[in-house]
């Protein structure tokens, strides 16, 4: 190893962390015909280590993919899911896009933000909760919608929202409305996004609430597609 190489190595992660990340990174990169396609997953991966994309994280991605750090930063800053400063264990988002806002999302945000004492993209002093104003999260039929670490918390009210955050800060168990039986941390979530499954896919319902309304109506009336013949069995 020449001097230059050892200098870059020493600025990044401790050797055992680096070794672990490198194993994961190589597996991820191997899935793509061209290595650079792994950049978004690798940014999720380093976020799963640090809770945000740290300097060491940028450098790691750059080294793994043969890019400059500037290139990596340029890409990462385009995407809202990559945090640029340390974030809380729980990323609590309130959808404030038009439909949720009208259905009560605005009131939820105002009351929650006041209750917790932090604003958009700010973290509570105990390091537990980061609040975020979210755009439409593709759950409009469950409005008003909240997300914690990218799990669904459907049909919220200002009261349920405040309770939810109080519970998170008190370390009480909190369960998504459509998701696994336990909420994982922000870092754990980021690892799944990197493409490294956590084995929780089987938990939770197939679908719930509004997702099933149409099917219920169809069944009540005995409506089917022509011939009823759609089964794949």
């Amino acid at each position, binding site marked *: 190893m020449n001097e230059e190489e050892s200098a870059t190595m020493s600025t990044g992660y401790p050797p055992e962390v680096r070794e672990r990340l490198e194993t994961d990174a190589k597996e991820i990169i191997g899935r793509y015909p061209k290595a650079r396609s792994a950049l978004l997953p690798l940014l999720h991966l380093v976020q799963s280590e640090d809770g945000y994309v740290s300097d060491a994280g940028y450098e790691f991605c750059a080294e793994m993919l043969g890019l400059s750090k500037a290139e990596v930063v340029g890409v990462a800053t385009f995407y809202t899911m990559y945090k640029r400063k340390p974030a809380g264990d729980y990323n609590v988002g309130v959808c404030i896009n038009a439909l949720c806002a009208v259905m009560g999302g605005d009131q939820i945000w105002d009351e929650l933000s006041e209750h917790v004492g932090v604003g958009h993209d700010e973290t509570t002093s105990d390091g537990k909760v980061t609040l975020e104003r979210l755009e439409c999260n593709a759950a409009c039929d469950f409005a008003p919608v909240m997300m914690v670490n990218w799990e*669904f918390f459907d049909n919220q009210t200002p009261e349920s929202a405040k309770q939810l955050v109080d519970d998170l800060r008190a370390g009480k168990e909190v369960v998504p409305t459509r998701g696994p039986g336990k909420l994982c941390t922000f870092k754990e979530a980021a690892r799944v996004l990197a493409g490294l499954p956590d084995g929780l896919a089987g938990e939770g319902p197939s679908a719930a609430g509004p997702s099933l309304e149409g099917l219920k109506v169809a069944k009540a009336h005995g409506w089917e597609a022509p011939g009823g013949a759609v089964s794949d069995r």
Partner: protein
Amino acid sequence: MTTLTPVLTRNWDQPGSFTLEGYGEYAAARKALSQDPDAIIQMVKDSGLRGRGGAGFPTGMKWGFIPQNDGKAHYLVVNADESEPGTCKDIPLMMANPHALVEGVIITSYAIRANHAFIYVRGEVLHVIRRVQAAVREAYEKGYLGKDIFGSGYDLELVVHSGAGAYICGEETALLDSLEGHRGQPRLKPPFPAVAGLYACPTVINNVESVASVPSIVANGADWFASMGTEKSKGFGIFSLSGHVTRPGQYEAPLGITLRELLDMAGGIRAGHELKFWTPGGSSTPIFTAEHLDVPLDFESVGAKGSMLGTRALQIFDETTCVVRTVLRWTEFYAHESCGKCTPCREGTYWLKQVLKRLEKGQGSEEDLATITDIADNILGRSFCALGDGATSCIHSSVKLFRDEYLKHFEIGGCPFDPAASTVWGSK
């Protein structure tokens, strides 16, 4: 009377619908892989399936554009970025029935002679990503993906790729740039992705629902699919009702069903209220009012009335809702999501937001109405991609349909509506 036709949503109430055991044995994919790829393309052409991601481009025709025997790698990229405000069908579909998508990917990839496919899922839906990852893993374990699928000699690798929060990555060429590890900004067309897409190779980009519909076509035939819907808008689609509706949710019906029929099934507008305005296909489609309750929700009929079928995202607002506030919030979304590549959209959405903020506070003037119309005119048709055009839909349509409501804001020096009355709990 139009009735519902659950196909993709049919198994959603079954526990384990998301597992291979709950779904079935990929009979359609087996059938497809024993046929000539061109026969599959022809079948999808004959079915009349049109893209379910918004634009309604004929799916079979898109596949047919892929050059054959060109010696290049071909790719299928599934657009699972679902981020258009109001659109909420692909996410529950992938949560409850991911194998319909995976089976569709196998058939589609085989038809276009691709050996590598990607599902680009928006990152903000963790459990959905888990379900799709698990479905893909199960399919690999059964030998439905990987080498020599069903002993046909056909190989396919499928990667689930999570995005990282950017609406623009739903635009197909921005999605490709993002998937190549860059900022998600649209590319100049031509060349179209069918010629130079992912890694400059021939690529098909299709919406989740488009691809997931393919196994049912292979299983039941093109005629079966074409027997549903209208003359030019064939088949079924998921209609997503949200907002001030008694029972919002996902209603899978033939294209051409009307909002009046859907509302009947959904228990109507919430009790004690009436319909004021709605989007037929997401926030990028011009708004409609009660006048449009009987417009058949197919590509042609909605277009003839000045809007677009889009993604069948029916966001429904009752008389308690302020149009100006709603339009402001959509506009803030477009300003936030504009990728900044072209000036009309980057600057225009910013200024629209500023003027609308003033209008909503009752501090505007009639001149401001002319200003937002002018700005929108300068974005529409002059932007690099359809995000810019989409941002103008709610401006033009709301000024046209609700001019008086804008005027009222500056007549009384504020918003005439009580936002509390629009909330879910406000009506109780």
